[in-house]
Structure formats: C-alpha cells, structure tokens
C-alpha cells in the first residue's frame, strides 16, 4: 500500500465535498433540467460544469508541480499555508460576490461560470497541500532512483498533479450526477428549503483549518 494513499483518498473526499455544494453546479443542472422539462438537460449541463471546475484546480496543480521543483517542500508548505490563511481571512473580512452568468447558459458559459465559481471559492487552494504531499513522497522515490534533471522531474510531477486532479474531478462528477439526478427525479425542490445549509461557512472552516495545518507542517520542516 502506497504511503500517500491517505492523500489520494482525501482528494476524492474533497471532490465529494465540492460536489455536494449546491453553489458548485449540481443545482444549476437541476434548474436547467426543470426549465427544459427533461432529464437529458440535467445530464448535459454537468460535463461543462465539471470541466470548468477541473480547469480551475488544474491551474493550481500545475503551478505547484512547477514550484515544487525549485522550492524546498518546507518553504512551499509554509508559503501555501500562509496563502490559505490569508485567503480565508479575506473571505471572512470581505463581502463575497459570486461570479454571475445568464440562467440559460450555453455549455461554454457554464464551464466559464464553474471555473470562476471554483476559483473564487478557493477550490484549488483547498487541495494544494495534498498535492504537495503526493509530489513530495513520489519525488523522494524518483530522486532515489537517480533522476534529477529539472525537465524530467517536472514531467513526472505534472503527470502526478494531473492524476490527482482527475481523481478529484472524478469524485466531483460522480457526486454531482448522483445528487442532481436524485433531486430532479425523486426528492424535488422542497428539499432546498430544509437541506440547503450554509455550506459557505463549512467551506471557510475547512479552508482555514487546512491553511493552519499546512502552515504548521511547513514550519516544522523549517526548524
């Protein structure tokens, strides 16, 4: 069993968490289905939404893969922890405006909306520390086998990062599809009035906690 299995599982877990958040897109898909009065409209809306989310996360992931080569892990973790904590503070301090789009969004508009929605919520930042953990454990193995050229390491890291993004997005897609179809076909919208808890509050708590943990890990490596 790989030592970083926990990190891969956490990536999938965050996919589940992001997927459950109505603001991330499944509710949009349900609304479009109701407007068109067919399930296929629900299903057609989901891939662009997942794609937009994936792009937002992949951007962060590739950045980390690149930085990971030139910056020692402890410093990277410390910096990332600081960014996360600052981002959380900004989200609490500043009133938050959602990105907007038209209701009858095209596939392109849906993807763009989802990209901005995920970015504005800090979805990529939330998974960044997990990526560092995965890259770190794998690159130690790579270095032990004598491969140390930057280009070679980056190709390897980028591949790993993209694999991590795919795991996250796979879980996201599965969650969104399940929830959207169940709500559209079985539960109905009455559910929203009771079950739409303030996910933003949980989200901010998760972001803040991740930031603090990352910061501590980084600092521990530094001293």
């Amino acid at each position, binding site marked *: 069993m790989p030592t970083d299995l926990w990190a891969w599982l956490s990536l999938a877990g965050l996919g589940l968490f992001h997927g459950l958040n109505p603001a991330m897109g499944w509710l949009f898909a349900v609304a479009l289905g109701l407007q068109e009065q067919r399930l296929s409209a629900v299903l057609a809306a989901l891939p662009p939404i997942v794609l937009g989310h994936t792009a937002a996360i992949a951007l962060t992931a590739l950045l980390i893969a690149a930085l990971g080569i030139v910056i020692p892990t402890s410093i990277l973790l410390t910096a990332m922890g600081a960014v996360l904590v600052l981002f959380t503070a900004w989200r609490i301090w500043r009133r938050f405006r959602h990105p907007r789009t038209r209701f009858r969004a095209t596939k392109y508009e849906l993807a763009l909306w989802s990209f901005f929605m995920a970015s504005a919520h800090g979805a990529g930042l939330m998974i960044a520390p997990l990526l560092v953990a995965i890259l770190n454990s794998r690159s130690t193995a790579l270095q032990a086998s004598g491969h140390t050229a930057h280009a070679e390491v980056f190709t390897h890291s980028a591949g790993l990062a993209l694999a991590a993004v795919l795991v996250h997005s796979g879980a996201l897609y599965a969650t969104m599809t399940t929830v959207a179809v169940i709500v559209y076909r079985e539960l109905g919208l*009455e559910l929203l009035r009771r079950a739409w808890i303030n996910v933003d509050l949980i989200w901010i708590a998760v972001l803040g906690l991740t930031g603090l943990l990352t910061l501590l890990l980084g600092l521990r490596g530094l001293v």
Partner: protein
Amino acid sequence: MAVWRPDPTFYPSPRIAMKAPPEKLAYVVRLNPNDDGRPDAMCVVDVDPTSSTYSKIVGVTEMPYTGGELHHFGWNACSSMLCPHTPHPHIERRYLVVPDIRSSHITILDTKENPTQPKVAKVIEPEELYERAYYARPHTVHCGPDGIYISALGTPDGDGPGGIFILDHDTFEVLGRWEIDRGDQYLHYDFWWHLGYDTMITSEWGTPRMVEHGVLGEELLAGKYGHRIHLWDLHRRRRVQALDLGNEQQMVLELRPAHDPTKAYGFVNSVVSLKDLSSSIWLWYRHNGEWKIQKVIEIPAEPAEEDQLPDILKPFKAVPPLVTDIDLSVDDRFLYVSCWGTGELRQYDVSNPFEPKLTGVLQIGGIVRRAGHPAVSGPLNGGPQMVEVSRDGRRVYFTNSLYLPWDAQFYPDGIRGWMVKVDVNPEGGMQFDPNFFVDFGDQRAHQIRLQGGDASSDSYCYA
C-alpha cells in the same frame, strides 16, 4: 448576517410558494395629502382573522423626512435568492426598500426585530441617487438574484430617460445605472422579468414633468404618454425589442409576467384608449424566438351625466374604467384588474392567457358609482387601485389612492383613504370580507406588501 438555513419565506418554485402559510401582517404606505408638514408613513395592518386587532393598524413608522410621496416599495431579498446561477440563499428577507416618488429619498426599514414597528435602518439621500445614477423619482422595487433593482421615472431635472438602477444587497449603496444599451427607450414606469428566459420587461408612463402636475391634457390627446413595452437581455443589459400597442393606447403600466419560469408570457394594462376611453389588458408572449403582443381584454367606458363628472371628464360624458393596477396569482390562474374610474375589481380566469374569462366583479367607490362596503355606512370614493394577492391565492387586498396630483383631478372632492380585503373562491368568484375595512381617514393608502411575500414580490428560477 450568517444564517444556517435559507430564509423560510424563500420558495424554489411558484407551486411550492402556493403552500405558504397565510400572512399575518400587511405593510401599507400611508401618504399625507394635506401639505401640513406631517411625514408619510409605513403602516402595519393586522390581517390575522384570529387576532383581536384584526383589520386594525397595529404599527406606524414615520419617514424621517417630509415633503415626499410614498408609492411603491419592495423587499431586499426574496425567492430569487435560491436561483442556481447566483445562489445567495442565506440572505434574510427583512428590509423593506421604500422609494419616494416625489422627493427621491429611499428609506430602508428593518422589520426583523419587531415586525409591527419597522425601524429606519438607512436613508439613501436623493443626491446619492442623482450622482451615482443620474436618475430621480424612484418607483418599482424588485429583489433580483444579484442585487436590488429599482426603476426611476426620469432624471433629476424632470425629463427622461427613465430607467433602472441597482442597489447593493448588503450595503444598500446605489451601484449605478443598469442599462448599457437602451436603444430609443425614453419613458419608464414598471419592470419585471422572465428569469427562465434571461429577459427583462419595462413599461412606459411619462417623465416626471409629464406626471407631477397631473395628467397633461394636450400631451395625452397627442398620444405623448407611453404606449410601448420593451424587452431586454437581462444579462447583457441591452434592449432587444420594443412592442408598440399603438399610440392611442396611453400609459402602459403594470407588468405581470407568469410566475412559472418555463412560461414566456405576461400581462400589462393600458390605462386609457384615446378612441373610446376604454382600458385594456394586453398579453405579451414569445413565439418562435420573437416577442409579440396582443389585446386580450377590453373594458369599455360607462356613459355618465356631465354634472356627475370632474372637469377633466366633462367633455367626454363618460367615466373611463382607468385600469391602473393588475395582479396575477402565483399559480398564474387568476388576473385581478383594478378599475379605479368605475370602481370595480374584476377577476379573470387566465388559465388560457389568450382567452381570459371574467369570473368575478366587485364594486366599491368609483367616480360616479360611489359604491359602499358592508363594513361601513354610506358611499365611498376613490376606487380599487393597488391590488395585492396572497401567495396561496385565497385573499386579495386593495387600497384606493392612485397618485396625489392625479387623485385631485379625478376625485376633486378629496379621497377618504381605505383598504379592504376580498376572499377568493379557489374555483373563481370572490366576495368582500365584511369584517375587514381599514379606514385611513384623511390620509391615503397606496401599495400593500404582505409579510413573507406576495404575488408581486417574488420571482422564481425553478418550475
């Protein structure tokens, strides 16, 4: 501000909103026609039949300024907060946004702590509106998915164009003009939208100069008042189409789009036809991607003796119905029509919007008719005007004042302000509640909003 669950008064769809519990309070603006320095006020009326103060004014909040005229108002937030593309479900419906059509103040009232004694939370001074939007005489308020939308009759100097500006949901700051490309739109009055079609609709009355000194006879006879509606791309903020009712149709006012977001049609009233003084209701609808409009109801003028009529109507020897407000029930089934001139409230079954069927008529007030009410003795004046329907469609409330400068022309002997309630048979037909009559005495009453929402306050994104 952080709440854990959505506001219980937000409903995803009109179908679910129909099951909302009956309202217990109504908010009604009270205006002072006497020029004696007393401010206008927001009155809170008890509409709970089991309460000992039923049909009484149980709270009054005076405006912190004088010299204005309250008219329409709305909520800071409503069911559109649940919309999936701009989800803000954890904002509360607690503030009434109360524009002043004369002085251009906008007062924010907080109803949360004590719903019967709303507190003034903020006053937006006219200068802020002038500077940020160069609009004046704010009118209709709608809680949009991404901000509070307010229409304005014109500019600070009293001319056009009138248009829409946006208030921030949280800070109530004027963010600026809404329109990016208005085409040749110049007159403004009401607006609402089809959220399911990303479409805004706006209507036309007149500029402040044309309405503030009463209706201008010459301009009316020349067809200068509004006779069009405009359709806009709600997202791109551009006008896409104008629909002309013909310039003999003067003053095209209240817009009532279907609440069901999958339906692309709605009703608008034309106050008076220059041909025969009739009023009419028009249906706009979407057909093959184009918007169209057609007349679906016409209400004729009633002949009258010259000595029964105010000066403005004497030459015509008839009372025009003067349909000045309409309201559509949340299930899009019944349309209520206020005939302020003849003193009638009409109910039409509009299940088939192209062929409305008259299902009920009640008479009260009227320029000539002066019909009474079971709760009071003697004739009444003014006529059915601002009409509001409860979310479940079972109760209808209305008041009898139109607009002070126009009240004086059509009811020159003054109007005694009142508010009444009508009970509705679910299959059509209606009767006055004999126990509900709110007497405003020498003050007047205009728009009514029901606690928790009503048929003209909320819009929905889910069918």
